[in-house]
């Protein structure tokens, strides 16, 4: 829908342009500037062209190896988290009450983890998962004791990953559940009634009615969660600090290490730009898919006004379901 055009509207957008220029464009340009130069401090810069980029994208170089490691780690994390959160979120949404007093209660419970600041989430789990005083860590440790292994996220790679994944699932499943719940609520009762009449099983109702009607919100949820998990920083930083070793060092954590830990500004800048481009690409996919899913073509198959559909032959053969002779 294009509305009436009023060119004065552009004036109203000007402040935002100015703000975006200051907050985004200028700092980004600084980063671009850093990414093509080398510096050894003292504000001395040497032109390096695309050198950092070449090194970053070359898996055989030290920087490249590090970058790809973090990237795969990140993708693996996003994959695991999505694979757990989406089905779990749907399951939770399906089992939430549809009316009555339980609705408000369920909504609040689901929204609660979303309201907690991210560093607090990290801190909570840091304590919660500790094997000595944390309830979760202690319980798991006791359970694993007969097997002779122990659960310690500061030392075991697997334990660290399990903790981070569970933390993320705890933190974000609510979001997916809420989105799915909204999708489910929008299905008119007539659909469920029709399915009951058609003798559909619970599973058939899910695949033929609920899942198709949730498709849109699920898509939003998946893309949102993918972007978010791909940019994760605070929680693992607080919980594991990227360790043990580099086993939970995701791109964002690695970037900070590179920039602020090693002060390799050029390399870090190049990495930021590439990181940024990946996210932009994901954004673009997100946007395109959303827009295309939104487009419902106009209804097809109407015979134009007055056009008579082909009539059946006059002497239709007798069909078995005609039990009453015409």
């Amino acid at each position: 829908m294009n509305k009436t055009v009023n060119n004065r509207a552009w004036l109203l957008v000007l402040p935002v342009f100015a703000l975006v220029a200051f907050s985004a464009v200028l700092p980004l340009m600084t980063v671009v500037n850093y990414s093509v130069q080398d510096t050894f401090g003292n504000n001395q810069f040497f032109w390096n062209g695309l050198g950092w980029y070449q090194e970053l994208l070359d898996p055989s170089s030290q920087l490249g190896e590090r970058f790809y490691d973090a990237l795969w780690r990140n993708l693996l994390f996003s994959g695991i988290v999505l694979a757990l959160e989406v089905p779990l979120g749907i399951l939770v949404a399906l089992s939430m009450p549809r009316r009555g007093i339980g609705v408000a209660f369920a909504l609040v419970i689901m929204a609660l983890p979303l309201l907690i600041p991210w560093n607090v989430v990290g801190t909570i789990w840091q304590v919660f998962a500790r094997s000595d005083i944390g309830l979760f860590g202690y319980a798991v440790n006791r359970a694993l004791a007969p097997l002779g292994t122990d659960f310690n996220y500061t030392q075991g790679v697997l334990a660290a990953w399990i903790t981070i994944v569970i933390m993320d699932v705890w933190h974000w499943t609510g979001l997916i559940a809420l989105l799915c719940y909204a999708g489910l609520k929008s299905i008119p009762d007539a659909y469920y009634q029709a399915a009951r009449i058609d003798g559909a099983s619970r599973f058939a109702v899910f695949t033929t009615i609920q899942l198709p009607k949730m498709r849109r919100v699920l898509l939003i949820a998946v893309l949102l969660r993918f972007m978010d998990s791909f940019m994760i920083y605070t929680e693992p930083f607080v919980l594991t600090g990227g360790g043990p070793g580099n086993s939970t060092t995701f791109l964002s954590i690695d970037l900070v290490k590179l920039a602020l830990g090693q002060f390799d500004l050029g390399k870090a800048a190049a990495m930021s730009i590439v990181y940024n481009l990946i996210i932009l690409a994901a954004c673009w996919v997100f946007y395109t898919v959303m827009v295309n899913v939104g487009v419902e073509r106009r209804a097809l198959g109407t015979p134009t006004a007055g056009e008579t559909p082909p009539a059946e032959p006059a002497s239709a053969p007798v069909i078995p379901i005609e039990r009453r002779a015409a």
Partner: protein
Amino acid sequence: MALILENVRRDAGAERHIRDVSLTLERGTLNVLLGPTLSGKTSLMRLMAGLDAPSEGRVLMDGRDLTGVPVQRRNVAMVYQQFINYPTLTVFENIASPLRVARLPATEIEARVSEAAALLRLEPYLGRLPLELSGGQQQRTAIARALVKRAELVLLDEPLANLDYKLREELREELPRIFAASGAIFVYATTEPSEALLLGGCTAALAQGRLTQFGPTPEVYRRPQDLTTARIFSDPPLNELACSKDGGLVVLDTGARHAVTGAFAGVPDGRYVVGFRAHHLFLEPPGPDAIALAATVSVAEITGSESFVHVDVRTPQGERRLVAQLPGVHRLEPTTALTVHLDPQRLFLFDAEGRLAAAPTIARAA
């Protein structure tokens, strides 16, 4: 003093919603937009209101070019199919709301609201909330709110579609009186021919975004300029049969041969489509020169006071379905063979391009 649309076109993406519509709506008139779903009624109303700007063409009000002037700065009121009222305001406050926005003095508001409420028979309900009212009363409230503004242009988009049949009938009977009391230009969109006839005024027939005819309602009904308009303005659907005229003889595709009389008399030789409304298909010959057709009954629908008999007639292109609307009860079993009759005086003839070639020769017969 009129709203004028000049060669207005409206595209949305690749789809063309309105194709080259020119229309002049005089002040103080009621204009019906008649057409099936997706024929462009709502799109045209949005253009008139200024909710959308035309992709091409101009919209003029009293000679002033309004093209591109947004709806807030026009004097327009709109009523929708859904009953749209402020749920937390009483009926009085709902009706008064446009006047409050305009910052009119309280006494003026009081006077205007009472006037509108009286016109729409809402006086007993002024203190109630919209949800405590029936659907009919809710829609009356919405109409009152549209009238109280004294807008130059009042647009009603299928306002009765969500009401029960009887409530619809009741409000429909009152609307001409309500409209007459105001001096605005009224535009009323509907899919139902009977509604257009009841409201009177002028009718603009729309099909696929194109204006097929505009004129006084009875005239559009009795002399539709083309086949499309005749189809839009017929309920039950228009009956159609192809025929050819050659010298003194008319041959219908059903094989029926007939000497040239009635509507056939004034047209040149050639192929035509014969169109006739359901109440002009008869079981008994309506006159000495009636055309007889052999048919078989497909379904007979009986309403108690009249019957709709659906019959099939055989043509080289296959069976053709015709509907006869007959007074009284006609219990006809399906597959019964019978003879139906046409009156040559009460037929429309459309030429190969679908343009009207001849209309019924009997006054009031269409």
